[in-house]
């Protein structure tokens, strides 16, 4: 499978740029998620890839074949791609069989082959035997599977999925995640999966591209994004955090020593481009703070007072009041941890403490 490449692609609606000078390579044969907040341009990106829209500038290629430039377009039907839409876009006037066989008819697959190909595709998504059902009689989850079968039956090289799970209930969504992941690995098709749900992206993807108002902020494996975020935006998008403002007082390789406004000193992993005297923000995830016996004053140790502990089922959630700081620090511990109301010292590992530019969010 060849890589899909965006090179300096821009797209605007009436002068309002929603994809900005984007360089982006989607690795062939892998599961890539595009993750970003609502309105950041994910659908626009996907539609340019599908050939529904022309880029204003730049070039989109599949391997070495040029798909789109502002002046030339391979029409969608000639791209060998499949797409699953957020609202499924099941054709209501056709039954299940007709929905799936449509693409084969268009490809002029011989008649005697169509029946078995449709059955095979429906089998793959767990809809075997549903051929003659009216498509409007299907449940949401079944429609979703039908949309998937319809997209897969033509054996596309690239499958585009635009938030395909967002209309399903939580349990079904979880199951479909595993099934999609498994399907991708079995077929080796390049999956491009658009979502704004970070848990979804984390659990399924080989790589994740975090998109922010028209540009890709960071693209990498899930662990890389989690452990080496380049910006406050990326950190924020991947979950709840404690933030500390401060100034860099020393650098050692990719370690930055930061004096935060409450007075404490913190050592953390610096994002690219951080230097001494830079204004920075420091992030520590609630689960990365641990109760400690180390004395206050040591690096990465905060002294405070537990004001409230909440039982959350699989973990405990504590609010810690730290002097010189307005917001409580949020700390998460396992159920077995003994944390009592009153004074406490907490510590964060420098590996798990992220230092990013302050200008960013």
């Amino acid at each position, binding site marked *: 499978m060849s890589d899909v490449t965006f090179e300096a692609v821009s797209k605007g609606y009436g002068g309002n740029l929603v994809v900005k000078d984007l360089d982006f390579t989607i690795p062939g044969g892998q599961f890539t998620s595009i993750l970003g907040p609502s309105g950041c341009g994910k659908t626009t990106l996907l539609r340019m890839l*599908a050939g529904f829209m022309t880029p204003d500038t730049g070039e989109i290629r599949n391997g070495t074949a040029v798909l789109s430039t502002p002046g030339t377009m391979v029409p969608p*039907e000639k791209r060998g791609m499949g797409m699953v*839409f957020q609202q499924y*876009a099941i054709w209501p006037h056709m039954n299940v069989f007709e929905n799936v066989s449509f693409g084969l008819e*268009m490809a002029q697959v011989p008649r005697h082959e169509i029946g078995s190909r449709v059955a095979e595709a429906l089998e793959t998504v767990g809809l075997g035997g549903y051929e003659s059902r009216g498509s409007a009689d299907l449940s949401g989850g079944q429609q979703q599977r039908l949309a998937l079968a319809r997209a897969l039956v033509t054996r596309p090289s690239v499958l585009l999925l635009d938030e395909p799970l967002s209309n399903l209930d939580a349990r079904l969504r979880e199951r479909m995640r595993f099934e999609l992941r498994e399907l991708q690995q079995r077929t080796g098709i390049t999956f491009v999966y658009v979502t704004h749900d970070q848990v979804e992206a984390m659990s399924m993807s080989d790589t994740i591209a975090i998109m922010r108002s028209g540009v890709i902020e960071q693209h990498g494996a899930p662990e890389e994004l989690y452990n080496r975020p380049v910006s406050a935006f990326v950190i924020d998008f991947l979950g709840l955090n404690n933030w500390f403002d401060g100034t860099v007082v020393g650098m050692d390789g990719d370690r930055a020593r930061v004096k935060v406004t409450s007075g404490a000193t913190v050592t953390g992993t610096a994002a690219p481009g951080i230097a001494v005297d830079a204004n920075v923000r420091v992030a520590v995830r609630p689960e990365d703070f641990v109760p400690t016996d180390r004395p206050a004053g040591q690096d990465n140790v905060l002294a405070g007072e537990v004001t409230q502990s909440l039982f959350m089922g699989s973990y405990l959630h504590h609010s810690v009041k730290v002097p010189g700081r307005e917001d409580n620090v949020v700390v998460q511990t396992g159920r077995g941890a003994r944390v009592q109301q009153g004074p406490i010292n907490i510590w964060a590992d420098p590996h798990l403490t992220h230092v990013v530019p302050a200008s960013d969010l």
Partner: protein
Amino acid sequence: MTPLVAPRRRTTAGSKLPLWGLIAGLSLLVGYPSLWLLLTAFELPEQFSVRAFTDFVGDDSLVRPTLNTVVLGVLTAIGTVLVGVPLAWYTAVTDGPFRRFVHLAVLATYITPPYLTAIAFTLLLSPEAGILNVLSRRMGGPSFDVYSMAGLVLVVTLHVCSFCYLLVHDALKRIDAPLIEAARTLQAGPWQVLRRILLPLVAPAVTGGALLAGILAMTEFGPQAVLGTPGGLTFLPTRIVSSLGGYPPRWADMAVLALILVVFAAVGLVAQRRALGKQSFITVTGRGVRPIRFSLGRARWPAAIAAVGFATVATVLPFGVLVSGAFARDWTTLVSPGNFTLENFRAAFVEDEVTGSAVLNSAGLAAAAATICVVIALAVAYFGHRTTQRFRDLPDYLAAVPLGLPATVLAFGLLLAVTNPPFQFLYGTLGLLLVLYVVRFLPLATRTMNSGASQLSGELELAARITGASWWQATRRISLPLIWPTVVAAWLLVLMPASNELGGTVVLYASGTETISIAIIRLNDLGQFGPVAALAVAVISALLLISGLAQWITTRRASPDRRTR
């Protein structure tokens, strides 16, 4: 699998051409007649003069129709509120009996073309021979002169009250019961609930309905001609039409009258949109609304008698008298086995030299106009919903302009346009009537098509493209089958009024291009009420059939298993 085809060069200029072609065509259709109205009012292009405007004030033959028109509009607006609101309340939120019958009867009032309603009421209430008047006199009662402002207001109100009724009915249905219950729990009595909660919630619908009724009353030529003219009352539309044969032709004065009528209609429409725009604060989800229900208690039967009585007067009586007149030897007495005859139908369809060709003309014109309107509406909806070009919504706005052009005014503008070059070849042809109908009924088609298209997600078509269908294959296999029921519904919705247009046709018809409405009015003027009733019954029956068909198609379209998700 990388694509094997070479990328296709996009022709940017080519893709913009159809939209601009559509915009240009629509601008010509709606703009050119309006332009000639304006030119004529200022006596252009021969000279420039504002004489027609300054003379207006002193000329009683111009001021009087204007005042009459305003009075008719205002009284009808009031009348519709008095009739429509209680009826809507009865059918929407009470537990009274026969609500379904009343609802259908009120809606049916609009199917009968207004000139036929007016003719039916002359059979019932003309001062000398009207059946009800004769009956009343025989019992020593008074008689009512339908050829009067009061008669006109009565007839037009019965015809247009369905709009106000329907708007208020829907508004009441959308009020969620907890809104009322919340007020009740705060110790509000029924009267306070009505005054503080219900009335403010339905006020926009009432205002909107009243304004629409007023506009229709002012602009509708049929009843004004049938009831006003014999009673010596002239209105703007009838004044314009009656001047056409006169000498010297007072084109400029009539153009001014036409412009006044346009201003009335346009101001009314804008005010109506405003009023209805205020409705947005009502729960509009549709789903999850538990409608309110009032128990009428002891008022149940009196209310039912009033409601059913109205429904009868509005529908059964006029249609009944037409049926009776159609099959009776003498229209002044009700049909009975003793005076049953088919002679009226023979006289109307066989003997009369105009009717035969008029029926053909009407059918052909209506079918052609409906087809053209639907094709234009499809194009308008396509650009509005499926493209992202700039100005893609412009055709939709242009197609809505005729809403503000009353039929008589539009036809007068067209007449002025074709008595001047380069369109003189259209003068006196069926083609001219076709243009009139297309422009006049285009808003009906575009509105229907837009609502249909907005229910069709564009992704359905894109899904076909990405699975390998070309633009044409996707359109033919996906979009067209899905939009088809809407196309048929829009076609029928234009067909119905177009087969009976009168107010504009009367300006533009010529010998040989008479339509069924012209034939009926002509026979009516000749006092041949028997054949008139026969034709009316035939026309109304055909319309009922078509509307039943349209109803069936639209409900089938709206049923959940046909909807896109």
